[in-house]
């Protein structure tokens, strides 16, 4: 456990001493809950249509696949014309693209980023590394199956996929969302203990709360 995360006594600017327990005071430890659908299907369909047309990607590149996002967000391929935009913080995004290999160290950050995103949220695995490890299948430091650690709604194959493939993938994701099949966040909430057990199996220095948002 890092020193700044340990329970300690802090003296405030007004001279009052108080106890700080970062893991409990700075984070909400409550586990995520399943978000029920709307009371009637036609309303849920309307919501899903709206969600599909409003994809906000977290600008977080984990591996070499992140290089394909630059031509996508610039005029050459211009994903913005499909209503897909990049945001700088997890709070403002609802789509996490795991762009390529994910080392254990980055997995920790990816989990934190995912958990800080607000519902409804989606995960897209980009490239073969997220599917079966790709060329890093025997690496000591990268995970081999993303869906063991985060709920993946869609995989885009390739090593690495071209921006056109990503655009096609985002189109597929929109169809999934419209059909009400992109329920990754709810799966994460339902199988929370399973995901946490998997995550803790590879992250040996777990120094954060079980759920941080």
């Amino acid at each position, binding site marked *: 456990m890092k020193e700044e995360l340990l329970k300690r006594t802090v003296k405030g600017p007004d001279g009052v001493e108080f106890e700080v327990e970062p893991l409990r005071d700075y984070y909400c430890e409550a586990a995520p809950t399943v978000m029920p659908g709307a009371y009637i299907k036609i309303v849920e369909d309307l919501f899903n249509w709206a969600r599909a047309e409003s994809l906000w990607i977290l600008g977080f590149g984990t591996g070499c696949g992140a290089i394909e996002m630059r031509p996508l967000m610039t005029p050459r391929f211009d994903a913005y014309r499909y209503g897909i935009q990049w945001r700088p913080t997890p709070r403002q995004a609802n789509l996490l693209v795991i762009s390529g290999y994910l080392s*254990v160290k980055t997995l920790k950050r990816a989990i934190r980023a995912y958990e800080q995103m607000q519902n409804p949220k989606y995960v897209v695995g980009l490239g073969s590394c997220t599917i079966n*490890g790709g060329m890093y*299948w025997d690496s000591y430091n990268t995970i081999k*199956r993303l869906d063991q650690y985060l709920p993946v709604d869609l995989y885009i194959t390739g090593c690495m996929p071209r921006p056109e493939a990503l655009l096609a993938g985002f189109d597929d994701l929109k169809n999934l969302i419209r059909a009400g099949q992109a329920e990754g966040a709810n799966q994460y909430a339902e199988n929370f203990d399973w995901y946490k057990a998997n995550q803790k199996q590879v992250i040996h220095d*777990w120094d954060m709360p079980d759920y941080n948002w």
Partner: protein
Amino acid sequence: MMRELHERLKCLFPLGELTEQRRGPPNELAFVSLPGAYLRPALLHLRDLEGFTHLVLLTAVDWLEEGQFQLTYLLSNRTQARDIGLRVFLPRDGATMASIHDLWPTAATYQRELREMFGIDFPDSPGVNDDFILEGWIDMPPYRRDFDTKRFAAENFSQRPGRTTTDPEQHMKAKLYPGEN
């Protein structure tokens, strides 16, 4: 040029043979090995008197069969456009080397990396025991050659079933000479 430098240095330090990888001038590159105890005076001499002011890199090689680590200190003389690599051999068990972070501050980063990836200790180097790339590492240092990365990956990460690999030699044999198998 490099030979002259080698002759000059040989009077001062017990140097080994000079291995010239690239002859010049310009862009000369040569390597020479010396005992670890003489490394520091040799580095100081090269830096202050011979113009090798830049530490290009500090890296290690694991000679598993000989039971030794080789440290390579690559120095560059920018004005004369030539590089020299000093090689030091350490016993592999309990490998420890004197830190040179006070000669080049950047060496501390290299030493921290070597501590983590090879398990070579550099006492008194700033932050040498901090995590460098790996976090929460539980096995032996991964760049050591007796570390089995394939076994480690199989034991620690769940693999997606159905992945097959083909030995290139066998595959090409079957493809090119189908009758001979």
